[in-house]
Structures are given as structure tokens and as C-alpha cells.
């Protein structure tokens, strides 16, 4: 017995000896640790379309020409000092002078030409951020002088400048044909080390053209499990934990909900009866009690969506009202459709993606029940991401049959046309809706600028609402835990970029 006691005491002593030395994370107030949900596959600027890569790299290592404020939509200069449309296809960009890449290459018009060229070689090299920034536009860039560049599109491009707030500039020494794990940019930070599977470390760029950031070094670590991410901040091992769950966000002093610029919506596939009937689609929209889901299966901070774009997006239509929960009216509409020979009781597949957001399956089960209570015959099919992708973009499986699909798409690029293309029968991979009238409205809106554009986009949103082209559900929120030693709160931008330069220490 005495020996056992000694063994136990030795174990406890050993733990207590290593504990204070190893786990009191007394980092000095110059360095921070950020814990993300998954390690990037690469850090190539071309892949900053992927959030995991963008969070490390965008505007930390590789900067964009323009900054866009996620909350207000305001555009401000970064590597560009000004930008203007020369004609309906060409934008002239004036560049900041005296800026260099961290490999010594100068940032000038030639560097912009290189960056655009690298992203436009889709036959030879995939550049995802080019697709995200400029969709199908084919761009060419030409140096006007050392610090002026003209960027020309093959199609009229009145909102091309919004892409410059997404597309990062890359060193002319970057390999044209392979993705790099050692990105070189002009940003306030440089990649210090990347130990695969362990950590990525950024350190301050001493030659940065702008104000030197307060944080000298940022270490990124990655944990798949949200509870562990939250625990790391609680234990003092990390300063910012991204994408924690609502259940883990229990400390009001450190845990924040923030809009993640994702909108969830139902896509009724109107190629099939009964969803081809507008009354049936409206009945479906009226049958869903969305408010009942807030604070129950969804975080209470989630907001109801009446249209795809959020309020900070150009083309958001403030006149569109929320569809009420009105099961009586839904039953009435279904009865009217049935009286006209529409087979309203046709089985409808509800295609859902596992884990598309926290509690996704619960939300979809609730929606299924609500829809069925008014007389629909909907059955939920949950599937993993890869299989669900087959149903989300063309070519759709031929035997899909009547279906509704819960889709979550981002709306943070500043212009409603990006989202509205989801409904354009030819303009987007994921459109099922085929109405020439709507196509014409979108086609007109995207050629306009200024107030005319805003009005035209609002008209498109009104059409989408009036014809129940889609059933908007929610503007989603995410949660983050932030150490009390930092003076920083997550915001609309956090889901796509985390600019370390803007983080301050509390003291």
C-alpha cells in the first residue's frame, strides 16, 4: 500500500512539475496564436478562394489592390491608390509607389500584369481565386506606365473593381505552373515557417510599406474539433478560436457571434411538377416557421432572410418583406393548385448536405416536418458533401426527380449579381430555374452602373421573391472565442479574411 501511495505521489509530482512550465502560456504581448478548423493545403495566393487559406494569407502575406469593408461595403485603397472605368470593359488602376515584394521584386504595373496573367491561364493552371473574383471574365492587363495599369475584360464589366478586393497580388517570381507553399507578397507579414500538420508561423515584414502592425508574430494551429478550439483559448494556449459552436460559446466576455455572410436558402427544382407551379412554391415558403428555429435548433443571433443578398450588398431590396409563417394560406394555395390538376402530393426529395452548418440535419428535419404538415410529401435525404455536390451544380443527375435542395452560399462580394446568377438559366452552374423574363432582368442589370444598377438588381430580387424562385431562410452566424488580452472582435469579414494588422492588445 505504501509503495502504491509513493507511485501516485510521484505521478502527481511529475505532472505538477511539467505543468506550470509548459502550459502557462505567458506569451509576451507581441505574439498571438490563432486556432483554425483545418490546415491549408497550400498557401498559394491563387487558392485564397478557400477560406482556410485566405484566413492565413489574404492581406497578411498577399495583398489585394482594394480593401472592401464587409460591414458597410465601402471600398478603400490598399495596393491601388485609385481606380476608374475607362470604357465599359477597361478599368485603369493607379498603383501605390515604393512598394516591394518580400523577395525584393518591385510592386509595379508589371507585377499586376503578371498576377492577372497567372490567374487567367485556366487551360494550363487552375487559379480558384480568379474564378471567385472574376467568374468567367477573361482579363488582360497592360502596363500604361510604371505605376498605372489597364485591365480589360472580354465582356462589359462594370463591377470588375469588386474582384480587385478579392484577387491578391503575387510576386513576379512565383512559378507560373505550380501551386506554391511559400507565398511571397507585399503584405505586413511574411511566412516564417510551415511545419506541416503542426503550425504555420507568420512574422512581421520589417519592410512593409504601411504602418508596422502591433503583433510581431502570429502562429496558426489547427484543430478539427470546435470544443478543443474553444478550450485552447480558455486554457490560454491560443488567443483566437474560429468557428466554435454555439454550445461552446458560453462565456460572454470572450465569445462572440458574428455574421458569416452565408445565406441559407431552399432551391425548389421547378423543372418538375409540382414545384413548377408558383402556388406550390409559395405554399412551401409559407409553411416554414423560421422564427421557431431561432434559439432552438439555430443560434438566436441568426437572422431571417427574405432575399439572397444581405443589407450591405448593392442590389439589396429593402422593400421585400419577410414571408410570414401562414400554414392556413399554404394549405389553401395547395388546394387551389390541386384543383387545377397539379399533383401536389408527388413525392419530393429534400437534398441536404451533412454538416453544411452546425445542426444542419436538425434544421432540415424541422423544415421537412413543417412542409409536410401542410400537405406536401417531402422526404429528407442527407448526404456527404461530395455526393451533394452532384446535385448542386450542372450536369444534374438525370433521375433526380422533384426535389428541393438546401444550399448555403456566401454573399460577401459587394454586388447582388454574384448571388443572383444562381437563378440565371445560362449564367450559373447551379440554376434550375428557367425563366426568360428573369434572365432578361439579370442580363440588363449586370451591364448597368451606379444607381441604375442598384435599382435593376433590386428589381431582380423582387422578381425572385414574387415568383418564389427560391425560398430564402437565414443569414447565418458563426461564433469565435477571443482571449481577453486582445482588443478585437470578429465581424462580417472574419469568415473570409483575418487581418492580423487590425488586431490590438487590450493593455
Amino acid at each position, binding site marked *: 500500500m505504501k509503495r502504491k501511495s509513493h507511485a501516485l505521489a510521484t505521478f502527481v509530482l511529475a505532472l505538477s512539475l511539467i505543468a506550470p512550465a509548459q502550459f502557462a502560456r505567458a506569451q509576451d504581448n507581441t505574439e498571438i496564436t490563432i486556432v483554425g478548423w483545418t490546415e491549408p493545403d497550400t498557401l498559394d495566393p491563387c487558392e485564397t478562394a478557400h477560406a482556410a487559406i485566405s484566413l492565413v494569407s489574404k492581406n497578411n502575406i498577399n495583398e489585394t489592390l482594394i480593401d472592401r469593408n464587409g460591414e458597410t461595403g465601402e471600398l478603400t485603397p490598399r495596393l491601388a491608390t485609385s481606380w476608374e472605368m475607362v470604357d465599359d470593359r477597361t478599368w485603369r488602376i493607379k498603383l501605390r509607389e515604393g512598394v516591394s515584394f518580400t523577395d525584393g521584386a518591385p510592386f509595379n504595373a508589371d507585377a499586376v500584369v503578371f498576377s492577372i496573367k497567372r490567374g487567367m491561364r485556366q487551360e494550363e493552371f487552375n487559379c480558384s481565386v480568379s474564378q471567385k473574383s472574376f467568374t468567367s471574365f477573361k482579363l488582360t492587363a497592360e502596363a500604361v506606365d510604371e505605376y498605372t495599369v489597364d485591365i480589360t475584360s472580354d465582356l462589359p464589366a462594370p463591377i470588375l473593381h469588386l474582384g480587385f478586393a478579392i484577387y491578391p497580388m503575387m510576386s513576379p517570381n512565383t512559378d507560373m505552373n505550380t501551386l506554391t507553399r511559400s507565398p511571397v507578397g507585399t503584405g505586413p507579414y511574411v511566412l516564417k515557417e510551415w511545419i506541416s500538420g503542426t503550425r504555420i508561423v507568420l512574422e512581421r515584414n520589417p519592410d512593409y510599406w504601411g504602418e508596422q502592425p502591433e503583433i510581431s508574430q502570429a502562429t496558426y494551429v489547427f484543430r478539427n474539433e470546435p470544443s478543443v478550439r474553444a*478550450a485552447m483559448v480558455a486554457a490560454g494556449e491560443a488567443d483566437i478560436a474560429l468557428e466554435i459552436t454555439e454550445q461552446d460559446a458560453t462565456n460572454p466576455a470572450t465569445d462572440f457571434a458574428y455574421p458569416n455572410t452565408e445565406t441559407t436558402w431552399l432551391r425548389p427544382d421547378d423543372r418538375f411538377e409540382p414545384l413548377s407551379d408558383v402556388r406550390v412554391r409559395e405554399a412551401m415558403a409559407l409553411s416554414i416557421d423560421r422564427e421557431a428555429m431561432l434559439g432552438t435548433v439555430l443560434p438566436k443571433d441568426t437572422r431571417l432572410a427574405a432575399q439572397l443578398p444581405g443589407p450591405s450588398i448593392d442590389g439589396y431590396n429593402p422593400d421585400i418583406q419577410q414571408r410570414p409563417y401562414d400554414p392556413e394560406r399554404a394549405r389553401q394555395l395547395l388546394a387551389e393548385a390541386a384543383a387545377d390538376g397539379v399533383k401536389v402530393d408527388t413525392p419530393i426529395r429534400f437534398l441536404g448536405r451533412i454538416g453544411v452548418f452546425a445542426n444542419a440535419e436538425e434544421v432540415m428535419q424541422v423544415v421537412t416536418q413543417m412542409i409536410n404538415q401542410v400537405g406536401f410529401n417531402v422526404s429528407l435525404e442527407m448526404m456527404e458533401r461530395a455526393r451533394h455536390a452532384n446535385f448542386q451544380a450542372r450536369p444534374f443527375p438525370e433521375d433526380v426527380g422533384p426535389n428541393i435542395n438546401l444550399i448555403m452560399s456566401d454573399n460577401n462580394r459587394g454586388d447582388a449579381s454574384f448571388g443572383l446568377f444562381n437563378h440565371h438559366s445560362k449564367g450559373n452552374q447551379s440554376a434550375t430555374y428557367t425563366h426568360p423574363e428573369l434572365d432578361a432582368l439579370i442580363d440588363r442589370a449586370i451591364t448597368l452602373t451606379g444607381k441604375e444598377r442598384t435599382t435593376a438588381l433590386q428589381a431582380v430580387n423582387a422578381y425572385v421573391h414574387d415568383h418564389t424562385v427560391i425560398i430564402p431562410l437565414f443569414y447565418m452566424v458563426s461564433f469565435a472565442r477571443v482571449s481577453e488580452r486582445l482588443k478585437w472582435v470578429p465581424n462580417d469579414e472574419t469568415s473570409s479574411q483575418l487581418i492580423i494588422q487590425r488586431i490590438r492588445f487590450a493593455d
Partner: protein
Amino acid sequence: MLQFILRRALNSSIALVGLLVAVFVLTRMTGDPASLYLPAEATAEQRAAYADQMGYSDPIIVQFGRYVEGLLHFDFGTSMRQQRSAMEAVMEAVPTTILLSSLAFSITLVVAVAVGALAASRPGGIFDRMATTISLVGASAPDFWVAIVGVLVFAVALNLLPTSGMGGPQYWVMPVIVVALRPTGLLTQVVRGTMISVLSSPYVKTAKAKGLGHRAVLGHALRSSWLPVITVAGDMAVGMINGSIIAETVFGLHGMGKVLIDAIMQRDFAVVQSAVLIIAIGIFVLNILIDVLYGLVDPRIRYNK
């Protein structure tokens, strides 16, 4: 023995080829990786161009021919996501899995044999009842729950251990316990059951009747209990090589299981194939070791027939 190992190697290589063909075909049946990798804004042309670059638009037989040709040159393909050698990406994770599984397996073996044997020596006694209860709890406790509770208690509340990550010995305490807990519970039950059976056999009774001491009896009985224990422990070791996915995921360990699961979810075919190859080779080596151990423990087992 050498002849036996060579014969097993030949048999295993045939199975390995079958496995690689199956994995190659099955992964490609899951669809186009471009739909997962490219942003939603990518056009059909951009998706097609990407499929061409990656070689996914070729007929599957052409893709397989290219894969086999690569294998002959020890080229295991390029990770679609990481744009580097798939084998390099996989091999990075191997040391973590080997360390985690070997530590967990050692603990499992030592604890299960000691506790199981002691419990069996006095069936129905206090120690036996405690050991049985605790081992049953260990065998049935969900790994995931144990891991999360471990983090909250030992890292957050007591600050005795780190929450997760890789580093010094203290970083391995919780993952190893989580991986070892269930196998230890199961193996303890197996050792106990086998030992009780052996201890009640006539030769043990005879030995006791002749006045052989308790420790000596236990020693003899333990040796006779090894075969079933090796069989069960071997299965457990194979499971650990497969990757302790829960522990690796929760504790942020860069191991084989996590690499494989990530690659499957992302349809990173080359990484899936390389990981399966390495895991299969690991399992093959382990099975050989188990067979060799059988022969050492029970000399009556011969392999040359």
C-alpha cells in the same frame, strides 16, 4: 521461418494489388473532385479545364495505366489539394501514428495482462470485481466523449496537461490514454477469462497440489494464456495502425487516420491510394509479427508445412 515469411509476402502482395485496384476504381466512382475543389463560381469550362489538367477526364483504364506506370517508378502521384507528392504527404503522418499506436499498445498490453492476471488469481474477490467493473467501463466509454472530457478537466480546469497539439511527452498523455482505454478494457477481460480457464485446468490443480507457489502457478498459467491474448491483441494493434482517428482529430495530431479521412472527404485520390498502400503494408508486417509470435509462444506451431 524465412520460407513462411516469403510465402506470406507473396500472398499479401496479391491481396495488396487487389486492394489498390479496388481503391482506385471505388474512389473514381464517387464523382468529380473538381466539384468539391473549385469555387461555386467556376464555370463548366473551368471545371472541364481543371479535370483535363488533373487527368480526371481520361477513361478510367487510362488513368489506371498511368497510375501503374508511376508505381513502377515509385511515383505515387501528386496530391490534388497540396500539389506535392502524395507519398510525401502521407509519410509525414507515419511517425505520429507509429508513436501513438505503439505507446497505446504497450500500455494496453502491460495493464491488461497485469490486471487481468491478478483479477483471475482471485475470481470474485474485491480486486477482481473492481477490475471487471473498471475494464467494462473502459471498454464501453466512447472515445470522443473521454477525449473531450479529458481536455476540459485536465487542460482547462486543472491546467495539468495541454489541450492538444504535438510536442513533449505531456502532449501524448491524453491521446495515448484515449487510444488505449477501450483496448485495455477489452483485453483485460480476455486475459482474465483465459487465465480463469487455465487456472482451473487439471495441470494447474496438480501443480498446486504438489505445493507450487502462487506466483509460479500464475507464471505457468500466463504462458498458456498467451495464444488467445496475442490473437485479440493483434487485432487491436491492426486497428491502431489503421489510425486512431478520434484521438488524432480531437488532439490535432497529424497521423495516418486523419490524413486518410481528410483525403477521402476531399476526394484527393492520390493521397487516399498512398495512405491505403502504407496502411496495408503496416498491417501485413504486423500480421507477420503476430504469426512469428505464435511460433515463439507455442513451439508446437510450425510454419513449414
